[in-house]
């Protein structure tokens, strides 16, 4: 009996250690609140209790013991969300096979990646940590919160976020497998074939399991089909349990995937990059597919030669749920500026522009009920700017996740690293990727395969 009690106590001790990440409570006083979904509120307070926004209003009183953040003269917006990032992960591409849905970026989270802290310093509190674009069907991605200061990968996971998966069309998978290994696909036709074949195989796999599950009660000689993680994940896509996020550039390939998904009954679909999305905006809207784009980056390879800085605005005006992403260690630090470009190119309103980096990426990741706007009941994920975030003069003051301040410009340490390499004398504080490189960072890990050299 005693042993049982000890066991139970031990169990609770363990559960406490592995419990959900910490949440906090605080009262943000007297700021200009950019709610995104419910307009802008001057001189207003936001109360966060145990991680959730519990009150928004004027002259709120702080419950006892709650920290007060004075935001007088400052701008309070929802924490920025990046729908396309490769920060905070230790592996990007399993580029050995054109189809690898069985791999999971969540298995390689790296919470000590300084890129996450830099993102926080730009007001970005959540991101979509994605598999790369070497494979037609890449791995499952993970939606993370930038809870800096931990070594535990589980601490940065956004619990309960829906499953998402990376697909990729066009030159990256063609180059990685067609040119790299002489395999299908080496053309856009091949890319479509790979997806259709994979989905068809998954249907067969599901049918085999259905047959077995029906038979096993009555037939003692029934043998289960061989467990196959690749097919399991593809089957979950077909069942609607996973949102596809597809790397794409050209209108024809975007339209192709819309058709493939229609044929297989797949409805949850977001296009990434989508540089020619403006050409098929009505079709995207009719399908209900999202588009996550760059503000003004193109012409870095042939298939992305044709684009426009009006892309986000055109997509928005056509009713496509659109976001602006970084896909980059540098851009993730100032997504607010990227969103502001849509006011110069397309004349979007403040709310429309800010939606591109808040509520819209939240919708694309299936977490709009939790984050992306300042509303009662939502997570207390907040970025506080000294000026309006769409101004180039704005600087982030604080980044808050579930009521805990993870970045404070007044208190930020010179050396914010969580982990230090004891064998490296002086760390090189360079950013690993930038938009002036030849390839997008979706191709990380692939240079070895393609060129036998380093990145």
């Amino acid at each position, binding site marked *: 009996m005693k042993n049982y009690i000890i066991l139970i106590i031990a169990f609770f*001790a*363990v559960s406490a*250690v592995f419990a959900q990440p910490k949440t906090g409570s605080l009262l943000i006083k007297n700021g200009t609140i950019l709610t995104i979904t419910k307009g802008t509120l001057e001189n207003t307070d936001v109360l966060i209790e145990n991680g959730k926004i519990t009150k928004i209003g004027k002259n709120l009183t702080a419950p006892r013991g709650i920290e007060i953040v004075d935001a007088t003269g400052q701008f309070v917006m929802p924490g920025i969300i990046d729908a396309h990032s490769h920060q905070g992960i*230790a*592996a990007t*591409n*399993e*580029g*050995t*096979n054109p189809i690898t849905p*069985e*791999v*999971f*970026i969540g*298995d*390689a989270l*790296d919470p*000590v990646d300084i890129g996450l802290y830099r993102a926080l310093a730009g007001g970005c509190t959540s991101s979509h940590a994605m*598999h790369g674009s070497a494979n037609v069907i890449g*791995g499952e991605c993970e939606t993370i919160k930038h809870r800096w200061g931990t*070594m*535990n*990968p*589980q601490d940065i996971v956004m619990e309960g976020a829906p499953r998402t998966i990376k697909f990729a069309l066009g030159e990256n998978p063609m180059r990685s*497998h067609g040119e790299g*290994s002489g*395999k299908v696909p080496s053309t856009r036709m091949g890319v479509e074939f790979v997806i259709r074949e994979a989905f068809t195989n998954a249907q067969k796999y599901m049918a085999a399991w259905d047959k077995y599950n029906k038979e096993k009660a009555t037939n*003692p*000689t029934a*043998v*289960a089909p*061989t*467990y*196959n*993680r690749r097919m399991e994940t593809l089957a979950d896509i077909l069942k609607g349990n996973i949102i596809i996020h597809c790397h794409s550039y050209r209108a024809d390939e975007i339209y192709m995937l819309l058709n493939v998904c229609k044929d297989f009954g797949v409805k949850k679909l977001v296009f990434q990059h989508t540089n020619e999305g403006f050409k098929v905006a009505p079709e995207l809207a009719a399908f209900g597919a999202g588009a996550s784009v760059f503000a003004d980056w193109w012409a870095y390879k042939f298939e992305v030669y044709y684009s426009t800085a009006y892309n986000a605005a055109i997509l928005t005006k056509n009713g496509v749920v659109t976001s602006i992403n970084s896909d980059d260690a540098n851009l993730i630090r100032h997504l607010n500026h990227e969103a502001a470009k849509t006011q110069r190119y397309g004349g979007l309103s403040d709310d429309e522009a800010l939606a591109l980096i808040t509520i819209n990426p939240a919708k694309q990741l299936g977490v709009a009920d939790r984050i992306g706007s300042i509303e009662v009941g939502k997570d207390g994920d907040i970025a506080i700017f000294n000026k309006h975030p769409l101004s180039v003069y704005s600087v982030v003051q604080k980044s808050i996740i579930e009521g805990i301040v993870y970045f404070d410009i007044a208190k930020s340490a010179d*050396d914010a690293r969580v*982990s*230090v*390499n*004891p*064998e*490296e*004398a*002086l*760390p*090189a*504080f*360079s*950013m*690993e*990727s*930038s938009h*002036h*490189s*030849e390839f997008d960072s979706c191709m990380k890990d692939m240079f*070895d*395969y393609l060129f*036998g050299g*380093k*990145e």
Partner: protein
Amino acid sequence: MKYHLLLIAMLFSAVATTFGQFGQTPAPAEIVTSPVTRTIALKNANIIPSPGQMIEKGIVVIKDGLILAVGKDVKIPIDAKVIDADSMYVYAGFIDGMSHVGIPAPQNNQGQGGFGAQAQRPQTQAQPQIDRGNPPNEAAGILPERSVETVIKMDDKSVADMRKLGFTAAHIVPRGNMLPGKGAIVLLNEKSPYLRKDASFFSQLQGSGRMYPSTVIAVMSKYRELYKQAEQAKTHEAMFAKNPKGMERPNYSPTLQAFYPVIDKKQTVFFNAEDVLSIYRVFTLQKDLGFSMVLANVKQGWEHADAIKTKGIPVILSLDLPEEPKTSENAQANASGRTPGRLVADRNEQPNAEDAKKEEPKEKVANDPEKEKLEARRKEEMKKYLAQAGVFESKGIEFGLATTDADSKNIHANLRKMIENGLTEKAALAALTTTPAKMLGLSDVLGTIEQGKIGNLVVTSKPYFDEKAKVKYVFVDGQMFEYEDEPAAPANRGRRPTGGGTN
């Protein structure tokens, strides 16, 4: 380019074959006694029968490979070879908790298949035909069915090197990638008596370079898939054995069958998990699949000490410690603003002569407070690595020690660093003797100097952890290895010049 590499590789292997015998001569200072008698008595020694105990001026008698007697008043058998061990220290032979001893390091660093010397085989054949997205198991580094005995070479120099440090038994695991094969417990004498074959299921998160699984995400997936497939296959085989009529035949895959003892919890998974993040990943797999596990080769595990204790997972710390950075490399990294060995951003940028000139005159800034802070931070972090063993001890966690990544030249110094940073000598000795014996299920035969245990001993000139301690004798399975002091002067007329270095 590829052909050039191939040529070079072939050249090297040719050279290695021709001159191979040089590498295989025993270490010069080691003298192996011919077995005139199999009874040996150590007299007048300071005997440490187990950590924390001490018999002064005691006697140990080994007979026919076993410890016959130990104590103060022991009768020395008449046929014994008597060794005057006055002022010497006698310990139970050390046990290497996890080791690659006896497995020659691969000549190239292709990192594929990686099963000791055999890993080189596929490369000489028509490799381009391997589909790297779906490679055969050997190329993928998935060989759990193979036993490490097939690649151990007891005449490899590493065996003598480790023995000279006092290691008398080792849990040897193969080199390689994800699942390189099963480990074995081996006594480190030349006859290589296996104490236990297929003693462990060795696993790593290491991908196979250019082959699937190449990254940690694919290794994690493949591990889960193989494990579940093995569970399925095991059930299928059992069903088929009972009632084969009308049933599809099982595959009897040796790869999946290798998992069966793990599924039955009859074999322990020794999971190589060096850094803090790998340990989290390994914990995830363990939790999902439920195998019994030893965390092995841990280098950065202090963050997990409490979890390791709560979960009761046995742990083997690495005897490899980080090294102080080389100053020239620092200067370079500093000048170019780049991490050594990592090329960032612009690949087309060629270092041109003018830039090189500009960097040439080294700014001799006496005190850069920013650099000083970074250096202080680095030292603080270094200290954590050195203090890891002490932290585990202070939390009451027992651990063994692994030499898989350690250079034998550094092991004694590294043990001393651990002790300087908080580990007690008693716990250090336990980590080399009683704890690995317990962890490997060998407490009946190894780990202490007790009557009936295997005759494995280490005899030193001073207490083992003393800086100036010299190993004088090592006994493995009763076989004596004697070590002469290294000559103080370079010329020693009585001896043949030796070519292979002094240790």
